[in-house]
């Protein structure tokens, strides 16, 4: 087996960038910090492409099956024999695929930010944070140890917190950052407990050993399935809790509330973290443990299936009503991730039962390109019009043709119009869903139709809607450093679909030839086109059709517009219940009862001492009287009672 040790450089380079820029970025390297960060990531990109090439085409396959490889390993913290957190690097199709995606998109964003964030006061800090995030994300995807992945999981969350709160003097940004961190932290609690449960019974934290012990008949598997809590086997508990962790990161219903607010961060950050990479970590986590889910506990897989489907549909519906361009994109992200999730959920033990796995990963791959592209375009637009609101835009297609083109490509891709990349992955997903569960298939269709609709609603109301558009203070579409990423990503969005994905990333590592999608593809594409046409009809020209249409849906529209009031429910629970019903009483009890007890001890002592002061009356006759009484008492006690 060749020496993969240099792989460790891929995450370490961004880390180095973080350290250097974090220490000196603010004062000394302010000017060139962007270059440093970008350079570091560029090297990682090259390395990861090299690794990918090497893995997929030269060494990865052993007799036709891609083997997972532990490229590097070191004990980090050892609890007890066999149970230790190792820092290890695992190479298998999905991790290799992920490092390519992550480093590539991250590089694009670094590049884009050179222009976008120019002149920011905390430019160096920004790049430091980007470096930290890239490091953590790469570490996450390369982790070969379930606790290692948790570590990077947390780090990713932290860097996301830092980047969302980058404009820290905006209260909304601070609130959003807090929300994102706390919600994901809450989900991670599930993850942590899941890890505890699984690791305790697997007696290991290493992924490969754990999967092996839980998929093949083994004492560990017997133990964890036989043990049960509240009538559900601990295996299901563990897997569900781990999935909850993933759902939190991936903003699946009902833990999605943080994602739209997270758009308070700088737009490139949203492109990187909240569209292409971090939010798919949940999907990746499930994929990482997929064998266990698929082979040992189908029940949990059902949960995943439906959670994914619901999130997809719900987000799509909400997205149709939002007016903040980044929020629309955020909800579409959520919806697409829902897609990936239920794709994973569609496993069934028929032939090509694991098609969903490949499809989900494939969609993850393509989605990264067009969603990043969408966000970067949005960035350019916002950079130009200094507003996130659609109504401030419109008719921009003349003033910014390049952006227009890229945006259109991205929209077509996400809408699943052939031959754009989204088409292929989506078709596979729908196919898998069709084979697994018709109901979910219908939801999928509906979602894809809605997707097409709201994306083009966005497209039309930004680029068409009213003529002219803003031209005041028109400074083109930004410098080359902003244009190049658009073009590159657009190319990606256009071509990514043609990657022979099912030959590379499959459940069992063996190549699998994609089932012909020809006839099957008609329905979804038709629906997508229908959505597009509807959007065009409503938003191509400035009119009051949208309002009418909204009126038609009435209550539903209102609900969707207010995101089904989920935020309100949450804030009610936290503010009213947690704070007022638990926190406040706890603090009060501590001050008044527990502490009061301690103080009252002193008080009682003082009162007693005040009570008995009368004995010291100052009269010598009382003194001698007490003296004599004392003798009498002693005499009585010790002569008659104690003897």
């Amino acid at each position: 087996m060749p020496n993969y040790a240099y792989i460790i450089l891929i995450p370490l380079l961004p880390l180095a960038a973080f350290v250097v820029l974090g220490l000196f970025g603010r004062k000394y390297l302010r000017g060139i910090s962007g270059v440093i960060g970008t350079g570091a990531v560029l090297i990682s990109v090259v390395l990861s492409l090299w690794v990918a090439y090497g893995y997929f085409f030269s060494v990865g396959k052993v007799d036709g099956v891609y083997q997972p490889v532990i490229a590097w390993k070191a004990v980090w913290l050892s609890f007890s024999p066999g149970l230790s957190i190792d820092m290890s690097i695992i190479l298998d199709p999905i991790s290799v695929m992920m490092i390519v995606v992550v480093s590539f998109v991250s590089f694009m964003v670094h590049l884009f930010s050179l222009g976008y964030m120019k002149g920011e006061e905390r430019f160096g800090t920004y790049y430091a944070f980007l470096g930290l995030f890239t490091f953590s994300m790469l570490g996450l995807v390369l982790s070969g140890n379930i606790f290692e992945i948790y570590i990077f999981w947390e780090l990713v969350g932290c860097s996301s917190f830092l980047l969302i709160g980058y404009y820290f003097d905006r209260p909304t940004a601070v609130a959003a950052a807090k929300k994102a961190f706390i919600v994901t932290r809450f989900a991670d609690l599930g993850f942590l407990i899941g890890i505890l449960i699984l690791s305790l019974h697997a007696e290991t934290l290493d992924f490969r050993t754990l999967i092996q012990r839980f998929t093949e008949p083994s004492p560990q598997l017997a133990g964890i399935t036989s043990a049960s809590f509240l009538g559900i086997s601990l295996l299901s508990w563990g897997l569900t809790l781990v999935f909850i962790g993933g759902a939190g990161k991936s903003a699946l219903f009902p833990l999605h509330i943080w994602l739209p607010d997270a758009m308070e961060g700088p737009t490139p950050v949203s492109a990187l973290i909240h569209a292409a990479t971090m939010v798919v970590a949940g999907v990746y986590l499930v994929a990482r443990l997929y064998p266990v889910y698929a082979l040992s506990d189908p029940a949990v897989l059902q949960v995943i299936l439906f959670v994914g489907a619901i999130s997809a549909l719900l987000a799509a519906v909400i997205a149709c009503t939002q007016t903040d361009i980044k929020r629309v994109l955020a909800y579409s992200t959520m919806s697409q991730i829902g897609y990936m999730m239920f794709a994973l959920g569609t496993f069934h033990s028929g032939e090509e039962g694991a098609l969903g796995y490949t499809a989900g990963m494939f969609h993850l791959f393509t989605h990264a390109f067009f969603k990043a592209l969408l966000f970067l375009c949005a960035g350019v637009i916002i950079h130009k019009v200094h507003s996130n609101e659609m109504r401030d835009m419109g008719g921009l297609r003349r003033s910014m043709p390049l952006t227009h083109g890229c945006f259109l490509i991205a929209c077509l891709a996400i809408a699943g119009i052939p031959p754009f990349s989204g088409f292929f992955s989506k078709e596979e997903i729908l196919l898998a869903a069709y084979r697994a569960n018709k109901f979910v298939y219908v939801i999928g269709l509906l979602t894809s139709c809605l997707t097409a609709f709201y994306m083009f609603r966005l497209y039309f109301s930004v680029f068409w809607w009213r003529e002219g558009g803003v031209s005041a203070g028109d400074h083109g579409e930004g410098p080359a450093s902003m244009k190049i990423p658009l073009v590159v990503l657009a190319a990606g969005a256009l071509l990514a679909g043609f990657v022979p994905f099912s030959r590379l990333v499959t459940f069992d590592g063996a190549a699998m030839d994609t089932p012909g999608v020809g006839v099957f593809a008609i329905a979804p594409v038709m629906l997508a086109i229908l959505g597009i046409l509807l959007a065009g009809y409503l938003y191509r020209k400035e009119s009051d059709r949208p309002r009418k249409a909204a009126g038609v849906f009435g209550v539903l529209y209102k609900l969707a517009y207010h995101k089904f009031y989920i935020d309100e429910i949450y804030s009610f629970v936290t503010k009213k219940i947690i704070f007022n019903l638990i926190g406040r009483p706890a603090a009060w009890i501590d001050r008044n009862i527990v502490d009061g007890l301690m103080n009252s001890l002193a008080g009682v002592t003082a009162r007693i001492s005040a009570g008995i002061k009368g004995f010291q009356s100052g009269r010598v006759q009382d003194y001698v009287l007490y003296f004599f009484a004392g003798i009498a008492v002693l005499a009585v006690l010790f002569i008659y009672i104690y003897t």
Partner: protein
Amino acid sequence: MNLSLLVLMPLITAIVVLFSRREGGARWVSLTGVTVQLLLSFGLLILYWKERAAGSMGMLFEYRHVWFKPLNIWYHVGVDGISVAMILLTAVVMVAAVLVSWRVQSWDKEFFVLLLFLSAGAYGFFLSLDLFTLFFFLEISVIPKFLLIGIWGSGKKEYSAMKLALMLMGGSALVFVGLLGVYYNTGGAAGPYTFDWPVIAQVHLPVEAQRRFFPLLFVGFGIFTALFPFHTWVPDGHSSAPTAASMFLAGISMKLGGYGCLRVAVSLMPIAAREYSPVIILLATIAIVYGAFATMMQKDLKYINAYSSISHCGFILLGIGMLTRTAVMGAVMQMISHGLMTALFFAAIGMIYDRTHTRLVERLGGLLKIMPFISTIFVIAGLCSLGLPGLSGFVAEVTVFMGSWQRTGEAYRIATILACASIVITAVYILRATGQSIMGPVKDQQYYGLADATWNEKLAAVILGAGIIAIGVAPFWLSDLLNIK
């Protein structure tokens, strides 16, 4: 290496400080002293590793000298991994504490003398292997705290100082009785009565005696480490104390309790420990969760940190109570991690208070714009406190969780899960504090023009932060250092 040097060094420094004539000479002298002490401690660490590598077991560098012969009381010191770690911690915190109290105006000599005296007590405590010596050093540390808080403190300082002194004395009174109980149960067949730790560890105390005296010892030491419901001295004491004292108090003094629980109560009375462990775990869990919730409601930064200390020290007691090897190791790690973290936190708060003259969260805001360095260390301390990987807090808590989870039995599992749940609450209150005071718009116009940290403050923060990160990034050296049997 002669361990008594570690006790003598601060005392010598204190004496030199007393005779330092020049204006501001006191702080320089004490800085030199504590730096030398830090170097000594590192030397100890290296020698310790050498010895262990050479394969010598048990306590190292032992030194015995008869003190009160008729009562078989000895001055007996020696170290194992835990004590070495705690000594290092103390040395680091002391350097930082001296550095942050650079601008003590009134009676600076007395201030530093008391501080050094306090540290001498802590060193002695961690070193001693004779229970009498141990108790001696334990009680030494009470009065300097009283004076430090009462003289240089802020707020209702006299009340807090008195409360702290009395509650801690109450604790040590219980310890005292417990120790006597142990002493009078060592004798008989095993020879004369003794306070000598290794000897007692050999003779197994009668179960009856264990049942009677374990609670005394555990609660007594527990009061020092904020055992629920005897924790109420913590918020007042910490928040009234001057910065350096708070750092030492929360960083080191609270650890005396944990160390005592482990070294004396649990390790000398294993049977009783096993019997009482459900109670301990219950109290610890209450402390963790309830402390966290109480913290959520605090408005004063120092109170926030003080209450969070209650919650965090709950982890120490939880780990000790769970009695599994991993959990106990986690408890010790938590002692060290919390020591560094809370010291850093108090240092940051102190710096903020020196400048803005307020500690109320709602009055602060946007400090990140005005004093980036201080805000950064504040955030780092906060992240460490909410257990972010890469910082020491995570390592310690995770070890405690893993260890506690290994204890079989549904009740223990639930306790563990509750403890885990507390990390979410921790996140909530840390982020609320950070979000309001560090981030957000600048609340008060006069905050503009406030200076960032001075060199000494920066140095202090860097020293503590280095410790935190060193443990957080590479915990293996620590876990090797304290391999608990």
